[in-house]
């Protein structure tokens, strides 16, 4: 694999990381901690929304984030023919 392709592959990987980690930060530190009081004024059935994110929602999103990353990277690996 030549250098420019290597760079492109790595750059794309970093881009995915930035987006996914932004969501990771948003649902836990953002919704669950920093803006929890604001979100708690909204209700999701019996849950206050901020509380729900801190004790349930953030965890669901974490699981989804990893599987999304797995899919994105498997596709990227194939495209650059670096899959193992």
């Amino acid at each position, binding site marked *: 694999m030549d250098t420019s392709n290597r760079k492109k592959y790595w750059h794309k990987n970093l881009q995915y990381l930035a987006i996914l980690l932004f969501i990771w930060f948003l649902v836990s530190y953002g919704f669950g901690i920093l803006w929890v009081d604001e979100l708690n004024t909204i209700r999701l059935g019996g849950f206050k929304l901020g509380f729900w994110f*801190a004790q*349930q929602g953030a965890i669901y999103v974490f699981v989804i984030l*990893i599987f999304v990353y797995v899919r994105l990277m498997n596709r990227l690996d194939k495209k650059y023919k*670096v899959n*193992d």
Partner: protein
Amino acid sequence: MDIQTWTFLIVGLSFALYIGIAIWSRAASTKEFYVAGGGVSPLANGLATAADWMSAASFLGMAGIIAFSGYDGSVYLMGWTGGYVLLALLLAPYLRKFGKFTVPDFIGDRYYSNVARTVAVIAALFVSFTYVAGQMRGVGVVFSRFLDVDVNTGVYIGMGVVFFYAFLGGMKGITYTQVAQYCVLIFAFMVPAIFISIMATGNPIPQLGFGATGEDGVYVLDKLDGLMTELGFTAYTDGTKSTIDMFFITAALMLGTAGLPHVIIRFFTVPKVSDARKSAGYALFFIAILYTTAPAIAVFARTNLMETVQNTRYGTIPSWFKKWEDTGLIAWTDKNSDGKIQYLPGAALEGKKPEFIEFRGDSGERMISNYSKTNKNELYVDRDITVLANPEIAGLPNWVIALVAAGGLAAALSTAAGLLLVISTSISHDLIKKQIAPKISDREELWIARGSAFLAVIVAGYFGIYPPGFVASVVALAFGLAASSFFPAIVMGIFSKRMNREGAIAGMIAGLTITCYYIARFKLGWIGKPETGGTKYWWWGISPEGFGTVGMLINFMVALLVSRFFDAPPKEVQHIVEDIRIPSGAGKATEH
């Protein structure tokens, strides 16, 4: 059959299963001993990682911590799951591609330095020993509560079982027993939770149940908030911790999770880089099943407790209350002599545990000498009771109670085994093979690894029987140290080609030192005057549990600064970095 018989039966069967698996999966080479031959499927590795990760504290303690801290308990829920996102995205695939056996291996090779390797070995040993002491103690406690044996006898039995499969099978034996242990522990955790959720709300899924309405048509959480505020507690869904402290504790737990050697090492066992990513996903999925159920159990248990005991005459209290009072997990002092229980804010005791005296009070309660005279709260409840007493409070059959015992043991044993493997690998591979005697053969190294496993079990057992004072602070310590040492060193090793030996070593030492200092000062009280060790002297209001995050930031800053003053790493190291960023050609984990 009574509880005792059921417990012996189910625990005995589960132990026989673990030992059977150990005999079937003996290790024949160091590669099998250290990384299970590198041939574990991502699904099996996900299950094993989940069991490795969830300790006696997760299984028995987690729901209780949340039940008694409400929203504040979220730091553990998010902190101990969010770290897996960091693992999957920033560490696991690259370390798998690197393809060696241990974390100090990576640090030593990437930073072309035996000093860096040694710092990493010391940190790995320290983190693993502090952590494993608590696990062996946990094994002893479960034995003593469910099987009426002495705590120390329980520790000996636990040592024997762990030793058997860690010694024979190494990582290979541990992996497949952990798969079985996950199944035992999750079944044991979910069965009572589902029953209780149905009883409280009619919804069989606990995750949904605690957002539903009870029989009276009121949302479960609203009712609990109401019960609590009425008595002067903070509402369950509101916290008492400051936002900055919530933030830093969550971050320290996440970063620590991603930096714990016994978790990282699990990703060396899968065949491919893509498998490492996938198995991190599976691991978190299996962990999330327990971690999203725990807050539901917490709410049901807390509501149940508040409703059952408040202003209830001691004479008419349900039998589980007296049973747990007999074991010392519940204590009641009739401060206002009305014969009724008042459960109010404030600590009911002076000190941590109730000190019982020989006498019974007017209502027949066990009397204690160290009740607090400064508030009106009459009731002490040990948090561990939340999971332990659940099946009884819900009136579940005896075999379910026995199952909880087997689940608690599975959780403690699986975590202890994973940690013992890190300890024995650090000694036989990172210290002896890599530094002291590089010429030993694979067979010799395998026997040294087994010998180190033996030593590690003895030391862990000793800590289990004579727990050192700092065991209570284990969580803060182990996570703080992992966050402030390994996490930054590994991340910079992958994402920065410029990071050199000098920067990494300086960063690790700075991060470790400041974190140790802070914990010694504010958690253990070993340094500084006790009168300045209180909450209001915390730096920026950050508790010792959250200080690992600051240690991590300092590690990054010092490393980046120091690295500027020294040469870039040699060409072959830069090639390593180039190479681990590309998944192809991973091969199985090898030594060279």
